[in-house]
């Protein structure tokens, strides 16, 4: 997985820079999301992995699948990936692209997990306090996990703020 990220980085960087030049990063974001979604389709994966399917056929097939969804430059990008045999990197490229985009636009995706569903006001207050802490615009994805028992768990990228009862119980267990 880590090696894949290393391979995917130059592609993601290139796409991001191009998107920024043209100012259509949202469009690219949708395209990449779509492409990575179709790459995760099992029947397509079988075809991509099949050595008997030649480059030409694969290109034709993929362009056919995507014709309504992607534009000229994205077509070229897809061809390039096929030529280099890097189609399988698409999910990573999409992920890295989203990271670059979020970084550039100055917001972070934050997962807020709570034991009980948050009200709108609570979500808002989370957003403001996290904004202060992280110095960035906050994009909250709230979810509910009963296993936390109570409290909350905030995940922003690598960093985790654990204010849940289950987390505290674990701390206590370790201490004893």
């Amino acid at each position: 997985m880590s090696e894949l990220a290393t391979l995917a980085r130059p592609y993601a960087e290139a796409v991001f820079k191009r998107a920024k030049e043209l100012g259509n990063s949202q469009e690219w974001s949708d395209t990449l999301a779509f492409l990575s979604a179709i790459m995760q389709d099992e029947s397509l994966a079988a075809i991509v992995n099949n050595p008997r399917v030649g480059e030409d056929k694969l290109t034709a097939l993929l362009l056919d699948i995507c014709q309504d969804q992607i534009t000229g430059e994205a077509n070229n990008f897809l061809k390039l990936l096929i030529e280099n045999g890097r189609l399988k990197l698409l999910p990573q490229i999409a992920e890295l692209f989203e990271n670059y985009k979020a970084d550039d636009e100055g917001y972070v995706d934050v997962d807020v997990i709570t034991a009980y569903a948050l009200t709108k006001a609570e979500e808002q207050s989370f957003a403001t306090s996290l904004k202060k802490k992280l110095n960035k615009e906050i994009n909250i994805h709230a979810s509910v996990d009963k296993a936390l028992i109570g409290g909350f768990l905030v995940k922003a990228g690598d960093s985790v703020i654990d204010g849940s009862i289950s987390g505290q119980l674990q701390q206590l267990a370790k201490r004893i």
Partner: protein
Amino acid sequence: MQLNPSEISDLIKKRIENFDVNVEAHTEGTVVSVTDGIIRVHGLSQAMQGEMLEFPGNSYGMALNLERDSVGVVMLGAYQHITEGDTVKCTGKILEVPVGEALLGRVVDALGNAIDGKGEIDTDQMSPVEKIAPGVIARKSVDQPIQLGLKSIDAMVPVGRGQRELIIGDRQTGKTAIAIDAIINQKGTGIKCIYVAIGQKRSSISNVVRKLEEHGAMAHTIIVVASASESAALQFIAPYTGCSMGEYFRDKGEDALIIYDDLTKQAWAYRQMSLLLRRPPGREAYPGDVFYIHSRLLERASRISVDEVEKITGGKVKGKTGSLTALPIIETQGGDVSAFVPTNVISITDGQIFLESDLFNSGIRPAVNAGLSVSRVGGAAQTKIIKKLGGGTRLDLAQYRELAAFAQFASDLDESTRKQIERGQRVTELMKQNQYSPMSVAEMGVSLHAANEGFLDDLEVNKVLDFEAALQSYMKSEHADLLKSINETGDYSNEIKQAIQSAIETFIKTNSW
């Protein structure tokens, strides 16, 4: 230490009382792969080099390779329960081990956990395993001796407090024996000893512990064990663990002696880790920084000044210097000192005690090769009496070796050559010493005086040791005061010289050996 249930519940109650609930913020990552004790973790962008990482199941690892998209982690202990996708937490701490007086007399593993079945270690002081050695200003030169209790070493390759003296030799040449004698000889001197066993059989370690207990030397000794069955990571950090425990005594103005038995195995463990972490191999497949693992470890053995001790203890200890003396051990293969690790450690240390299988097999034990063994700084630290008398011994042996080689071909030798050879044979004989019977400065002084003044020359070579034993017991019974005063002052004044001379003369008249 057995606890009864009510004590346990009290303990838990106390822990719960002191437990302050806080929201913890940390960095998380996920396990990508688990191979041979090396774990790759995705994420953990904030991890530090050498940081402890927490894995599920209360197990820990050490971050060693910080790469762009992943972190290479070495597990400390078992890793079989870790699977792909597990979450890994940063602890924000470099590996720490307990230090303090409570460790004396205990056997601990590389993480400082007691493994001798005598209960938990009662100390709340922790110290990071990796520390930077004291700087230039903090140091003081080595000018006090540490007696290893072996004639051949104290007379010819003296070791000072704060020195690093390498013990090097093939397998089965008595390297560990010297180390154990050195520990036994520190009984009653106030010098604390740490014996770090790296990659050894558990049976040999338990033998060492038993021998030390038998000789009453466990009370001032800490034993750190990373046996052959433990993971490479633990074998790698064990010396640093021991060093931190020794530094505790050094930093509070005491003297400590640490023995690393042996650093070859530590280098092997590090090589294993490095190759598994895919660091490029160099000479003998060791990684590029194999020199640094030993140099940074041995650099921590040092003598620190009065001011530094005062500064570290916050003014509690005044007028005392602290020292940590290191005796690293290196095992050579077939006497090859030009292999990679032996040359490295020879160049780092302040001298070496070179042990040879040939000498060992011909009955010269300790099998110290007097020609190749040197001490670069110990001379300044020798007690006066040993310095005066030991110089003669060294010279006698050096001349003897030169002549002995070529005297084999000569049928008749001139008088002076013959005398030198005979003296050499007797001094060589005198340098033999039994295991577990270290000698005091005064005892050594008497023996060396007898050799220097030619009292041995008239004896049969095979009678030398009997003569010495009889002389020592005579001195102990008849001249205990003299021995005591020598041990206290370490002087070799004319009066003392005369006193020893006349004592030996009277002893010879008794003809009792």
